[in-house]
């Protein structure tokens, strides 16, 4: 999928674990893991808001877009 999640980098930069973030945003570790590994089909605004609040970032910091053709070229 051209849209990818940069949660791993953000957590690393904030020195926070996935479990800790899951507790803070009241989301199950399994669901947060789905988001982190890029397996999620959609993300709720409420989830995005909670992640941005806890990691002190913008939605753009969490998500990236890479055109499939550009990536190949």
């Amino acid at each position, binding site marked *: 999928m051209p849209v990818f999640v940069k949660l791993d980098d953000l957590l690393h930069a904030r020195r926070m674990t996935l479990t800790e973030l899951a507790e803070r945003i009241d*989301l199950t570790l399994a*669901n947060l893991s*789905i988001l982190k590994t890029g*397996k*999620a*089909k*959609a993300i*709720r605004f409420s989830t995005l808001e909670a992640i941005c609040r806890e990691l002190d970032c913008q939605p753009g910091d969490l998500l990236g877009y890479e055109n499939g053709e550009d990536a190949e070229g």
Partner: protein
Amino acid sequence: MSKGNRDALLIAAKGGTILVRIGLVIGMIGLGVAMAVSVVDNSIIAEHVKVQIEPASIGDITGGVVLSLFLALISLGLTYDFVTRLAQVIDTVGRGDPFTLENAARLRRMGWLAIIVQVVSLPLAMLATWLESNVEKGSFQLDSDISLTGIGLAIVLFILARVFTRGAEMREELEGTV
């Protein structure tokens, strides 16, 4: 979702499907025994049924009775399958996960079963009319007719199957949402 497990309507419906299935099995056994007896020894029919019109012999009447019993047996078997699928749908509601493609397929099957039962009832009704007109009045009685309610039920089930298909698709979309 444990709410479904305590739902009085679901419990009553589940109990109802079990009772109906027990009744259907008893009915099927009874029809099977009646068919076997009619084929093996038609003297019972000869004793109790007086042929009214000469062209129809006791052999024809026995054949007609056996065929009508066979059609009624098929009808009960189809109804048993229908009630079994209904019980399975009720179980999934109880588990809190009814919007699945399996349930959509079950509802579609129930719709077809409702139609087939109606189709089977047509020759059964014709046969019943023939038998009633060829034997002494009151010695044979079988009520069978095509019912508009049955056809209506089939249409509702087909529509519900589509609703469940769409519900399953929506549920799948929701599953990937975090």
